């Protein structure tokens, strides 16, 4: 098992290297931070710009390949991901933001999975009944709304609640109110900031899980082994909950591989809309600031998240499916 995971990890490492390299080369040949610098007032001379860039390791006169080699050497030898045009160090910036993003998404991922799977089971049990139709229709609706618009609508809703109550219950932007001391007040403040984005991401995310879980369970409800379980003396419901349910988790576990990256991708939108200074909004800002190193770092981060998702999915699958375990 460990060997298997190690081998998978190695494959993904190669992939991450390739995508990141490709990303760097794309970024370095399209993004030109020097041009932005020249728009500063007072306008610096091209020589000044070039010197300041060179000092930050962003020499515009080198060819993309030379810069790639330089950049890669720095990472491999010193784990130094370079600097931004404004002089900030990527490693430090990145560290702060990863935690903000992770905090935001962890709750959403867990909630999405739990609610989606639970509703899927619930609606499968009440197939074609009113509850099933409502839940499943909602999931289809979620499918045809682009994520950022859904987040925006949730934000609007939260604002409406605040207005109708006449008090600010939810914060619709930002991660915390500055100047609140530790303790209970800080906790409430955190909840008020987390609630809206978490709810928004979860609301959009669970639909596909509900539909998939419902379908997988329905596929298994009439399986031969459920019949066997009933023939032993279990009622239909017992047979389904004890046997069909567990088997129907297998494909859902496999699909974790795609959820985690999907939620992080959705996170770009969420961070932008709820103004959370996470990796997502940073990367978009970095691109508009022509920041090659930051853009590449976030791209590498995205690839790592994907690989983690895939390995977690492998792990989850082996957990629920003994057939994989033995191989």
């Amino acid at each position, binding site marked *: 098992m460990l060997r298997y995971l190690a081998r998978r990890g190695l494959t993904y490492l190669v992939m991450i290297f390739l*995508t990141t390299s*490709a990303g760097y080369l794309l970024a370095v040949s*399209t993004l*030109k931070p020097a041009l932005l610098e020249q728009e500063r007032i007072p306008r610096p001379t091209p020589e000044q710009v070039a010197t300041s860039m060179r000092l930050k390791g962003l020499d515009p006169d080198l060819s993309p390949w030379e810069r790639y080699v330089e950049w890669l050497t720095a990472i491999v030898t010193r784990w130094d991901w370079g600097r931004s045009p404004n002089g900030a160090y990527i490693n430090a910036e990145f560290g702060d933001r990863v935690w903000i993003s992770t905090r935001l998404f962890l709750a959403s991922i867990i909630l999405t999975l739990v609610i989606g799977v639970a509703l899927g089971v619930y609606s499968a049990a009440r197939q074609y009944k009113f509850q099933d139709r409502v839940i499943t229709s909602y999931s289809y609706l979620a499918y*045809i*709304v682009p994520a950022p618009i859904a987040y925006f609508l949730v934000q609007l809703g939260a604002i409406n609640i605040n207005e109708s109550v006449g008090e600010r219950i939810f914060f619709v932007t930002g991660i915390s109110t500055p100047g609140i001391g530790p303790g209970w007040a800080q906790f409430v403040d955190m909840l008020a900031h987390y609630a809206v984005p978490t709810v928004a991401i979860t609301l959009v995310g669970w639909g596909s899980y509900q539909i998939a879980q419902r379908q997988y369970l329905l596929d298994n409800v009439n399986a031969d082994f459920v019949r066997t379980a009933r023939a032993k003396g279990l009622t239909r419901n017992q047979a389904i909950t004890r046997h069909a349910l567990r088997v129907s988790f297998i494909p859902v576990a496999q699909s974790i591989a795609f959820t985690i990256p999907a939620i992080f991708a959705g996170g770009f939108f969420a961070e932008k809309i709820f103004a959370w200074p996470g990796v997502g909004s940073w990367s*978009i800002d970095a691109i508009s600031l022509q920041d090659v190193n930051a853009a590449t770092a976030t791209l590498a981060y*995205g690839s790592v998240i994907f690989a983690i998702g895939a390995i977690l999915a492998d792990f989850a699958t082996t957990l629920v499916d003994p057939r994989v375990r033995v191989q």
Partner: protein
Amino acid sequence: MTNLNAVDPAAVAQDAHLDNSDVVIGKSTIIFRRFLRNKTAVAGLVIFLGLTVFSFVGGYFTPWDKDTIDPFNIGMPPSAEHYLGTSQAGIDLYAMTVEGTRISILIGLVVGLVSVLIAAIYGCTMAYFGGKVDKVMLFFLEALIMMPALLVVAVATSGGGAGLKRDLPSWLLLIIVLLVFSWMGTARLIRSMSMSLMQRDFVKAAQYMGVPPRRIVWRHLVPNIGSLLVLDITRGVTGAILAEVAFSFIGIGIKVPDVSLGVLIGGATSQVQTFPWMFWVPLTVMFLLTGSLAMMNDGLRDAFDPSSSSSGRARRKIARLTSGQKKAS
């Protein structure tokens, strides 16, 4: 339970019917009829076609266009002169919506069709050659899946002095980027489907008859994955429209002066309270567009299902479920 399956009442009934009329109708006719029998799907088709026509001829019904500012009507709600009102800058919303719908549909159709084409070629090639070719191509495919598409979109369409940006309109740039990142899922699906088809006895029979490989692919493989291709086109179109809206909404997709539904919706977010029509009108159009495509997809799936008896609610329900499952993967 074999007993129940063996006496297939549908087949028996169909048989009796065929005995009476000696005409055997073609497969495509059957599929077309089944599709037409599905009210939701037909409604979807009508809405979609209506919107397409609107996006092309709608411009002739108003004297305004998307570039002309009406200095006398700035930020006006819908009126007789400006059917859907005007923006803060005094531009006619109706004219912008027509233009935006056209761009959105264009992006959707091009990306949907071309990505399925790429996927079909890539997937069939993998399945056909197998072995090493398959492995290398699969690695490349998975690497592409790993790339966060959004970042690449942002890099490709972002400002600055990038050469691409100057030569190409932003919608074309977006199409190219979306294309690069939209075909992998379908290609994987086509690959696995072709691979299982290659194992089917009728393909083996053709091979043993000495039918050349090209003909086998053309006569046996392609028609049998045809339904999947058609369904993936509608799914791809929906996906591309949604992606355009999402990217433009946060400002990294289509850029002004080009107009699209996403640009319109995104641009209006800050004015929902003051100019609500600027937000809700393009949003409604987008819903009509994606909703009608989803309805069509549902009907198509039903029509292609060979076991479908094309009547009865139960069947349609199942079809809808499977379409949902697709999305999850």
